């Protein structure tokens, strides 16, 4: 009786994972939470971002982020409670960190992960400058980017948290 039981206990916790290669973690860990933890060194200005946008983004997101064929990035601030809400980065996205995270991992759609950290900071600065969320002379880096308060920062209700309380 005892022997098969011991066998089962010994087999109950298989361990087939290998210690992760630190280089793998470094290459893949691109997610940036609202506190900005993990934002890379470097910086980018609105002026630099404007040039990169004209070269790599405008064909899908339109002049000044007006959209079409891809998502509208700008405008719509103050429309969310109206009959015709316009949901854009400017009007709807609660965190600027999300913009950095998403651009760096997925844009441009034809060449994802091709932008440098420097270019990504610059693009975030430029896009957020269009509606005045950052100033026209802004330079963003790991310190300044998480401090940006997006217009719709307090616009979300945590439905999961609500059901747990």
């Amino acid at each position, binding site marked *: 009786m005892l022997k098969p039981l011991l066998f089962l206990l010994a087999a109950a916790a298989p361990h*087939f*994972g290998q210690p992760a290669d630190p280089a793998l973690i470094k290459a893949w*860990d691109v997610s940036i939470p609202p506190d900005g933890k993990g934002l890379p060194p470097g910086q980018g200005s609105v002026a630099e971002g404007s040039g990169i946008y004209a070269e790599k983004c405008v064909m899908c997101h339109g002049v000044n982020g007006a959209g079409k064929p891809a998502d509208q990035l700008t405008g719509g601030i103050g429309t*969310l*409670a109206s009959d015709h809400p316009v*949901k854009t980065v400017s009007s*709807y996205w609660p965190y600027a960190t999300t913009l950095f*995270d*998403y651009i760096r991992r997925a844009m441009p759609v034809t060449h994802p992960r091709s932008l440098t950290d420097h270019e990504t900071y610059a693009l975030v600065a430029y896009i957020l400058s269009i509606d005045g969320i950052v100033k026209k002379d802004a330079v963003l880096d790991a310190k300044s980017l998480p401090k940006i308060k997006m217009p719709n920062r307090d616009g979300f209700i945590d439905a*999961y948290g609500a059901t747990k309380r």
Partner: protein
Amino acid sequence: MTSKTSRRKFLKTALVGGAGVATAIPARADEYITQAMTTPGRPFTAYGMPSPHEADVKRLLRPPGISPGSGASQTPLEHLEGIITPNGLHYERHHNGVPDIDPATHKLLIHGLVKTPLEFSVDALLRYPRVSAIHFLECGGNSGALATPQPVQATAGGLHGLLSCAEWSGVNLGMLLDEAGVEPEGKWILAESGDAASLSRSIPLAEAHEQGILALFQNGERIRPEQGYPVRLLMPGWEGNLNIKWLHRIKVTPGPTMAKDETSKYSQSLKDGKARQFNFIQPVKSVITRPSGNMTMNGPGYYEISGLAWSGHGKITKVEISMDNGATWVEAEMPGPILPKCLTRFRLPWQWDGKAVVLQSRSTDDQGNVQPTRDQWKAPYSSAQFYQCNAIQCWQVGADNTVKNVYA
């Protein structure tokens, strides 16, 4: 030998003669000996395909978005029976195409707030004990067409086909999280895909640990590339978008990462401008698939009304059918299987008198949730909100034999 002309003449005579002789043996019985019965069939195939006569049963391809692989294809619900979606017809929603991943080089990384960051090869994942369960998957944007001001005329699959159901087999995520050893500060995970979209979603750790399955198999075979080959995350009953395909990274975090697809998308805008976020579970829902949109009725007579019901909260306990704009309801049969977070087939025999009628189905789950009418569903939401639409579908069967999507 009797000629064809004389045979027709004979049959005509026989039919005129009355019902009693209608079953008379045809003059040329050998006409009923078909080529399939007289010619040896084709040899074996290594991987079988549907009959060429079923070529019209296929996914409905939506016009692509910003890149050829951005967008969706939908399951032709009206052509299918039972509850299982054939793998080649499982709906797709991709954000930048279907990657071609070699399982020999694919890795799953678990890191963040863990004692030992670990990487797993696919071969390693295949060595763990497995679980199997039949669950539906539904895109958070499914049935969003019902949010539009005017009813869209389309098939059941065209309106509700971002919905499929399969038997998924794989490894409990909790087992691998335990192996890495989650630190006490770890309260959420971020799951990320290894494709050109690197789609990522935050999931509460407790739920991921308890319910998460790393699915390696779909209906008995290894999951299809369109479903995340070689491994996808399955959160049974949860919004399709966070069942991350081509899963390559899980990071244990202190809180939600606020990824693009849990803030800018897949959040539900209310009338006052606020938006519900982290509303993970697909609500109780049903749709009649037969008869359904764009079908042509065969005139008055017997029909079986049949369709699918499901809930991300649990089991379906009841499906009711109304034929009088919701005034009265009759309970449909559910022959089973009735499984939690799984499509459930319902049926109801129906004698149609040929007059115009609106058919509706309404489902209830074992948590007491009842499917709302379209007006009830829309009430709290902003005009732009279409996610997790579980409004009752109304099909108008017309005296002209048409079946249309209506708002009743």
